[in-house]
């Protein structure tokens, strides 16, 4: 019998020290780029100074003469047809073949004994090429006479194959044609391309491994990489070993394979380990957030209730699908936000372009949608003379209420997050001149399917090792998992070792994404703990010749008719000097649901509220953040400090795309502001003067101890909150991001000029 004790004490809900923290502050943690393997060759990529080009000839004669060069790989050196890969569509070539489709797509790769030699040889590769007209904007992507990005042969069955529309989606309910409202608000919003800018640029190593391959990558989903490598190399999965040290920041940008297949082919060709460390500039060219143009027609009743939302979202994705179509599917599915919307029509398109492949990025398409939808609600409140908190309260569904027909009902007291944020920002207090406030909600769905296995080994001395395929890229998964194991086994977290990052050691996990790991892998680990407890109960009954019903298992202790024993004592008594261990396997498997637009209902909703107070300098358009509040509906904060770190970190990242970040392209599709000098992200001087992170904890999540996921929530609706605060302060109506001083100043000036007329 397993006693599920009430866990009010112990390790849950406590701030424990970060697992892996010591290594991070002392500099001893090895990221991929820090790994040295004897005999390793260094790789440099060769790319062209334009977005799209036809490759006529690649001449490597001069570069092969550089001392130390061992291999120069071009499309000609790879199998024919060119192996292609991708998480959804196998459209990305291992290296450019015939044509480059985005600025930075490599046409050749050089491996040499030193980095210097590789760089020198890469610069000597002569490429004869011809610049071609490219697709760089939503407008040209939709132009039927414009260039076509993708070869229609890659998706022969697709009715859109002769256009740049990779996917067109339609969601809706109610009859939009007949929906009548007192007020209709119609606007168009844009969200630019932005880059992940993890401080660790991507790094990869590949090495031949007897009859297989070993690949090191700073990757969030090592098992997906393993499967893709097995596919392109035509090897059994068991012969592909992916080692994934903790990434130095992921944010979605390290989710999907990039240059690992190329490196694997180079390792097999040279018979040597090969290493590629991207520069920050190359990292900019390796992945980005989807840009979007969202047009919305919203209907409201006079009292502020939403009547309908009519949304057309055009997401500009890159040259290859990567995971972008999934981003569009998921984000547009919740396009109406956390509100009761009786009638909805959502049309969303993923449009190919000759730009950096767009991929997952914290928030997974939601920030683009919520910028539009939340701004629409503010516009309606203004037109109807309603308070912006009140209008939201009026439309938030109640817990248990189905608000997306057929999907998981509202799973939290969502109004509490809104009220908590409003109170913390002192919503109803008077504002000094030049200041304004904004408040907004963001909603995101999490995993709709998953396979997450874990193996828990209870060692002879009572300590434990947990083996899991999740990646710790800074969110603190190792810490949370150590707390769950420590809680369930009644030991200190420092008695737990969390093993991650090696596909030959840890069991399968679909991905580290969608803020899922606490709920999905957390549940798997919780179950592994229960499995260990149930085994130890059997063991105790056997050891002490009792009926199993006489044995009660708690957290770390067993109660027998004659008293208590620790797990360790039971094991010592059972195994003696032979020694042994108890192994428990946990699983969380949610299979795909056929017919569901997203292959399944969401495991939980991630809901967050942002509230901002700003001061706008009318002379310069500069925005000063005087106060910022982020509130997450987290169910249960298993580690409050970790939740705060995630929520404030996400919100500050959101301030980046709200106020300063955007990738700028020239007419040739080149990124003009490539690198740290010209692409600004928030520094410590950009953080709000006051900042508060709060949690709503109703223990109503599906994860262990009532937890939900967090980590993305903080930036879902940051732009809308900041934009609303700026509009409130300056009387502007801005619908394009980022809200740079220039853009704000122009909006102020235009408004003043219009008034004068």
């Amino acid at each position, binding site marked *: 019998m397993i006693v599920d004790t009430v866990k009010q004490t112990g390790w849950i809900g406590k*701030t424990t020290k970060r697992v892996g923290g010591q290594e991070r502050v*002392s*500099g001893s943690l090895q990221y991929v780029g820090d790994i*040295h393997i004897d005999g390793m060759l260094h790789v440099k990529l060769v790319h062209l100074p334009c977005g799209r080009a036809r490759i006529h000839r690649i001449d490597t004669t001069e570069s092969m003469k550089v001392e130390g060069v061992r291999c120069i790989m071009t499309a000609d050196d790879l199998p024919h047809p060119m192996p292609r890969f991708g998480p959804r569509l196998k459209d990305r070539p291992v290296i450019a073949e015939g044509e480059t489709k985005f600025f930075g797509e490599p046409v050749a790769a050089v491996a040499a004994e030193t980095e210097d030699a590789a760089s020198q040889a890469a610069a000597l590769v002569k490429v004869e090429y011809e610049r071609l007209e490219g697709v760089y904007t939503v407008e040209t992507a939709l132009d039927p006479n414009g260039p076509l990005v993708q070869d229609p042969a890659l998706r022969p069955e697709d009715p859109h194959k002769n256009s740049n529309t990779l996917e067109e989606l339609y969601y809706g309910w109610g009859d939009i044609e007949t929906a009548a409202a007192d007020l209709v608000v119609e606007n168009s919003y844009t969200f630019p391309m932005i880059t992940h800018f993890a401080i660790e*640029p991507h790094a990869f190593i590949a090495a031949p491994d007897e009859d297989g391959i070993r690949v090191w990558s700073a990757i969030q989903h090592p098992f997906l990489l393993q499967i893709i490598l097995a596919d392109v190399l035509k090897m059994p999965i068991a012969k592909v070993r992916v080692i994934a040290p903790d990434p130095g*920041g992921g944010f979605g940008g390290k989710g999907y394979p990039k240059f690992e297949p190329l490196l694997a082919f180079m390792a097999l060709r040279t018979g040597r380990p090969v290493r590629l460390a991207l520069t*920050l500039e190359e990292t900019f060219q390796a992945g980005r957030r989807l840009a979007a143009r969202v047009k919305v027609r919203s209907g409201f009743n006079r009292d502020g209730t939403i009547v309908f939302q009519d949304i057309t979202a055009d997401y500009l994705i890159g040259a290859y699908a990567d995971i972008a179509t999934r981003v569009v599917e998921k984000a547009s599915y919740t396009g109406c936000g956390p509100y009761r919307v009786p009638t909805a029509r959502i049309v969303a398109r993923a449009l190919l372009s000759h730009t950096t492949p767009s991929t997952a990025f914290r928030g997974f398409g939601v920030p683009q949608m919520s910028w539009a939808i939340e701004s629409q609600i503010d516009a309606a409140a203004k037109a109807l003379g309603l308070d912006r908190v009140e209008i939201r309260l009026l439309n938030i569904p109640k817990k248990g209420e189905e608000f997306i027909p057929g999907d998981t009902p509202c799973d939290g007291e969502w109004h509490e997050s809104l009220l908590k944020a409003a109170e913390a920002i002192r919503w109803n207090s008077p504002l000094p001149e030049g200041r304004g406030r904004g408040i907004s909600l963001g909603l995101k769905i999490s995993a709709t399917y998953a396979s997450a296995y874990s193996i828990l080994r209870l060692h002879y001395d009572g300590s434990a090792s947990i083996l899991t395929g999740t990646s710790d890229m800074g969110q603190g998964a190792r810490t949370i998992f150590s707390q769950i194991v420590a809680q369930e086994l009644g030991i200190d977290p420092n008695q737990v070792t969390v093993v991650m990052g090696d596909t030959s050691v840890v069991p399968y996990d679909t991905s580290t994404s969608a803020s899922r790991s606490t709920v999905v892998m957390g549940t798997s680990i919780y179950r592994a703990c229960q499995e260990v407890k149930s085994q130890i109960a059997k063991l105790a009954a056997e050891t002490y010749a009792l009926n199993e019903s006489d044995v009660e298992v708690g957290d770390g202790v067993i109660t027998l008719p004659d008293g208590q024993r620790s797990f360790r004592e039971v094991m010592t008594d059972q195994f003696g000097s032979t020694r042994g261990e108890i192994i428990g396997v946990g699983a969380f498997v949610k299979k795909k649901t056929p017919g569901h637009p997203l292959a399944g209902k969401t495991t939980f909703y991630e809901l967050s509220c942002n509230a901002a107070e700003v001061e706008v300098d009318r002379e310069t358009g500069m925005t000063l953040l005087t106060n910022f509040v982020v509130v997450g509906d987290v169910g249960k904060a298993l580690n409050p400090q970790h939740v705060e770190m995630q929520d404030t970190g996400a919100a500050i990242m959101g301030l980046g795309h709200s106020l300063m970040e955007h990738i700028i392209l020239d007419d040739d599709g080149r990124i003009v502001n490539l690198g*740290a*000098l010209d692409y600004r992200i928030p520094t410590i001087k950009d953080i709000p003067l006051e900042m508060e992170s709060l949690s709503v904890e109703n223990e109503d999540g599906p994860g262990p101890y009532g937890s939900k996921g967090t980590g993305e929530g903080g930036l879902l609706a940051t732009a809308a909150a900041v934009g609303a605060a700026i509009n409130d302060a300056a009387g502007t109506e801005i619908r394009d991001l980022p809200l740079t001083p220039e853009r704000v100043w122009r909006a102020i000036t235009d408004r003043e000029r219009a008034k004068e007329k």
Partner: protein
Amino acid sequence: MQTEKIPITLTVNGKVHSIDVRPNHTLLKVLRDQLGLTGTKECCSLGECGACTVLLDGRSVNSCLVLAAEADGRSVVTVEGLAVGSRLNRLQEAFLEEGAVQCGFCIPGMVMSAQHLLIHNPHPTEEEIKEGLAGNLCRCAGYPRILAAVRAAAEENGR
């Protein structure tokens, strides 16, 4: 590029190294590749992100902007030089205690900038801390907790 190497003498974390370096190699590259001190991180290579911050004769520098040859005869402290064995220094402890560390990639550079700040200004104001760390980017944006950590370490200076 395959030019003559230059012999230099470099004191790193108190240990003297006499090595030959290439004239085009930065201090960052030599620390990481020749001396195996990979605690110092490489990100932008332009002196914008601060991930490679070390102390050079007591001054904080971006080691990606210093040629190794320029460091001849000088003394370098890297993140590996802060702890004594496994005993962290008070600043490193504060970073852990205050929850300043997320992915950790910027942390060695961040700690070195903070170390420099506190050596020269043991009781910085909030504005001075921000100014001192303005050249170190953290994309996890752990800035509020990083501020708290430096503040906590500075408070200990008062005891």
